[in-house]
């Protein structure tokens, strides 16, 4: 005589599973109805062009029961400011008008970018912006719209000739260390043009100017290094205390590699000002003294040292990552080294983002870079093959063999590597996601004529191991099952239920 007993994990079997599916469908419909939104030109809280429930709209402004993208008044466009030359995309008309800008649906010509040369610096901006920047710096506008990207723009100024620009002022032969182009616009008091000496310093004795060497140092805008300063206030070569008496060092321009300790960052050095931003040092002036400031971070939270600008991932919470058992309330963090300070940046809450990290190897050493990236867990459980499951181009899942979800006959199950966080304390979504972990196991017993029952089929479902395996699946699905929270505490309840029916 055979008797079947149903062992159900955390549920009442098939009927309950079907109920969940129906509930999900109904809830989606209800949610859609409840979420019916109106496009408000302005909300009561003062925000422009938001899709919100109609009662949140400011009645003094326009509103329509459709998405803002399809309305004429909230369609995003380009906002242009003719006084500054600034252009802002994705701006609704009302926000643009409010800022006294000119709104257009397509990008106007005045927003096209070009290379603005500002002495030995450059900016990739619009023509109007270039004119404004040039005026601020007291320079003539030098704009090249043929240069189409920022990198080429920056490189174009690095290749400019620099040298001594000699001219007469107040009956004296003076000098300005500048670019050839800027020297071309400089005139002497007697209106004669200034003379440009490429790669020469103003202190070169052969030029016969009034500019002489000093022990003073200075930082230059856009330059890493500390420079010697001449008596006319011009920059000379990179500060090197051993070269103060060297005539050649005060005559000809020396490159960075020709200067002191070029392979090092020279942070805090009192004798060499050859700072290197990529190695973590930069010229800073404090109490009138310029030195190479150390920007690197030493002995950070994880015990390692990092260069300025490097970023790395940190997971400090309880539980593990990447194995489908991330703790409730846990979060990924990206840490960044900025100016000698370790700054942290959270990835999105509810584990909707995870932190990824890699290292670049350069001639100056390795450089760590991290980023918060979307956790692609959503379609893990519908994958039926290991290859699809572990396709890292598409999703962040892992394949667990020897088990299955629900009553699937597959030999494995695809689960999120980092289980998503759920708002289990409100709504019904957490229940419906966790319910995917419900399973039913039919155990067959045989009853002897005189003896008791004997298990014949699926007997493993009666063991603690089976319950643990089901719990592991449940925990991987989200904040479900017998999980710990981010500080390592267990819940007040066991987190699952094994019910024996029949």
């Amino acid at each position, binding site marked *: 005589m055979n008797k079947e007993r149903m062992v159900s994990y955390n549920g009442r079997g098939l009927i309950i599973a079907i109920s969940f599916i129906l509930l999900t469908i109904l809830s989606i419909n209800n949610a859609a109805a409840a979420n019916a939104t109106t496009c408000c030109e302005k909300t009561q809280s003062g925000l422009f062009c938001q899709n919100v429930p109609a009662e949140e709209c400011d009645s003094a402004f326009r509103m329509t029961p459709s998405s803002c993208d399809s309305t004429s008044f909230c369609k995003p466009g380009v906002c242009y400011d003719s006084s500054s030359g600034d252009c802002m995309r994705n701006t609704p008309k009302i926000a643009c008008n409010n*800022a006294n800008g000119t709104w257009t649906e397509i990008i106007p010509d005045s927003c096209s970018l070009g290379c603005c040369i500002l002495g030995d610096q450059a900016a990739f901006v619009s023509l109007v912006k270039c004119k404004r920047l040039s005026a601020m710096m007291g320079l003539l506008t030098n704009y090249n719209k043929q240069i189409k990207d920022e990198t080429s723009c920056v490189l174009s100024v690095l290749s400019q000739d620099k040298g001594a620009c000699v001219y007469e002022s107040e009956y004296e032969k003076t000098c300005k260390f500048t670019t050839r182009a800027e020297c071309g616009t400089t005139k002497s008091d007697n209106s004669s043009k200034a003379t440009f000496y490429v790669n020469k310093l103003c202190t070169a004795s052969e030029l016969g100017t009034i500019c002489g060497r000093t022990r003073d140092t200075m930082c230059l805008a856009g330059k890493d290094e500390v420079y010697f300063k001449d008596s006319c206030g011009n920059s000379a070569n990179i500060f090197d205390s051993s070269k103060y008496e060297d005539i050649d060092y005060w005559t000809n321009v020396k490159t960075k590699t020709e200067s002191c300790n070029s392979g090092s960052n020279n942070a805090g050095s009192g004798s060499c000002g050859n700072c290197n931003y990529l190695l973590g040092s930069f010229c800073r002036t404090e109490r009138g003294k310029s030195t190479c400031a150390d920007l690197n971070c030493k002995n950070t939270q994880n015990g390692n040292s990092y260069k300025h600008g490097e970023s790395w991932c940190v997971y400090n919470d309880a539980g593990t990552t990447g194995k489908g058992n991330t703790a409730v309330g846990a979060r990924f963090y990206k840490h960044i080294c900025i100016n000698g300070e370790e700054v942290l940046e959270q990835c999105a809450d509810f584990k909707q983002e995870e932190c990824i990290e890699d290292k670049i190897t350069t001639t100056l050493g390795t450089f760590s870079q991290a980023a918060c990236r979307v956790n692609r867990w959503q379609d893990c459980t519908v994958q039926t093959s290991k290859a699809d499951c572990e396709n890292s181009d598409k999703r962040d899942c892992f394949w667990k063999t020897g088990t299955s979800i629900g009553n699937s006959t597959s030999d494995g199950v695809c689960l999120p590597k980092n289980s998503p966080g759920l708002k289990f304390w409100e709504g019904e*979504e957490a229940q419906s996601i966790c319910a995917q972990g419900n399973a039913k196991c039919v155990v067959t017993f045989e009853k002897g004529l005189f003896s008791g029952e004997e298990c014949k089929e699926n007997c493993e479902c009666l063991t603690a191991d089976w319950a643990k395996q089901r719990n592991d699946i449940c925990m991987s699905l989200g904040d479900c099952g017998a999980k710990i929270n981010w500080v390592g505490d267990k819940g007040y309840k066991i987190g699952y239920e094994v019910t024996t029916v029949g």
Partner: protein
Amino acid sequence: MENRGKRAQLAIFMIIAIAIVAIVLIIAFYPKIKILVTGEFAPESYLKTCIKPEISSIMLILNKQGGYANPEGFLVYNIDGNEEKIKFLCYTSEYYKTCTVQEPFIMKRYALEIQKVIEQKASQCFSDLKKQYESRGYSVTGTLRDIKVDIDLKGIKVSFNSPIAITKESTERFDNFDVFIDSKMYEILSISQSIVEYEATYGDSETTAYLQYYPDLKIEKTKLSDGTKVYRVSNVITKEEFIFASRSLSWPPGYGVLT
């Protein structure tokens, strides 16, 4: 002997009291005292000393409130122990969508807000300036028409559009006075504008990308549970900072279909 000691003690207390009063008076009437001591009178310097405290105080508010003195559409957030109203410069109430720009020209707005707040004080400073001239025997004709605040690479410029004629033995004419206050807000606001553009276009911004070109810059991004981001852009040298909020491309907990 005892009396002499007491008198000496009293004298010391008197000296300290006079010194404290003198310091307070110097702080309160610095520009006027400077004029009295040096005898020279620079109108721009006078206006700068008069208007600077007003500008500094409004800048502190604007810097913590996303560039608005009285923001609408803000996030209430704790900054250094105080609840601040941080303006959303880009916002969407929805999930999975990039934000809608709320303020396209942050720099322009910032200058305008300063201008609005200091207008009254500027007028008062200008009247005081005229009185200063008159007290020195000058006759002054002309009024303050308006002021204009502009932010550039070196700082905050306040232009007093005030064509005036100052007459004593001869007449000196001024069309306007420019007051300049050192600040690195131009760079900070430009970066903030760029971050808003990234938020509106891509839904997020990569803060480390700015470090390559701006060594003195520090950007802190705090992500809140609902997807709101609070940005704190500062200059590590001048310690000036600008705080604003954005909500773009947020992800709901779970699938986000059931509530």
